[in-house]
């Protein structure tokens, strides 16, 4: 906020061409920062948490045709079994444990997963796109 209070009066004393140049540089800087932040967010490994008897998120999107390391964290009090017939994965996750599940390149599509120790838990979906 202070920076804005300094910049605005300063801008009134700058000639129009210089004003345009400064504003262009500022917009460019903000855009590049935003893109960098966005690309950093995409690098975050996908994660599924098991909490309060369900998976969060229930639906996860990942990139297709790219090997992925999926993190599964069990924040509940009971052991769960993260399983997916479509992904060919079956992993036991103890309470409080975080595991990494290696997924191969996946064709675009939907892949369902579930807790094989608790069939009442709603199943989740991984969408590769």
């Amino acid at each position, binding site marked *: 906020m202070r920076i804005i209070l300094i910049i605005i009066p300063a801008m009134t004393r700058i000639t129009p061409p210089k004003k345009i140049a400064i504003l262009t540089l500022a917009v460019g800087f903000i855009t590049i920062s935003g893109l960098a932040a966005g690309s950093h967010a995409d690098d975050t490994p996908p994660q599924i948490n098991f909490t309060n008897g369900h998976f969060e998120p229930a639906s996860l999107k990942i990139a297709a045709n790219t*090997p992925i390391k999926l993190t599964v964290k069990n924040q509940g009090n009971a052991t769960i079994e993260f399983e997916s*017939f479509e992904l*060919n*994965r*079956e*992993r*036991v996750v103890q309470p409080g444990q975080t*595991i990494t*599940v*290696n*997924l*191969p390149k996946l064709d675009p599509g939907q892949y369902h997963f579930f807790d094989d120790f608790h069939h009442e838990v709603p199943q989740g979906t991984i969408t590769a796109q």
Partner: protein
Amino acid sequence: MTRRIRTIFGVCGLVFVLLQGVPMSRKNPPVSQEVAAPPQVEAILRRGCYNCHSNQTRWPWYAYVAPVSWLVVRDVERGRNHINFSTWDKYADDPETVIRKLRNIDKVMQGRTMPLWYYLPEHAEARLSDADRAAIEDWVTQSIRAEDKREQVQP
């Protein structure tokens, strides 16, 4: 035979015929990679397990007669979902999944819950002796050790 009994038989016969029209998938998808096992263990797996747990199912005649066919197809589908010896490469990227599948094999061998009891009357060759089970359990133990080592090496 009374008219009533004839009617009942007729209705049952009609239902039986209609049931045969329910589409069922009895396909054998391609084998991508067989599980690696010593010849003795592979022979045991083939005669005891492969009909439900591989893509090389030998579909018997009753797999084409409803409603028994529904049970057969369901068991094969479930068997392949839980473990498939013909697509072992699909587990390979995740060594812990391979280990889990191997431990499940050990569990059903020790618990004698496989092959399913109702499968054996028609498939006597699938009956596993104590020696068969011991051979599979030994193979599982060695395979788990190998997977543990592979996992330590894998980046």
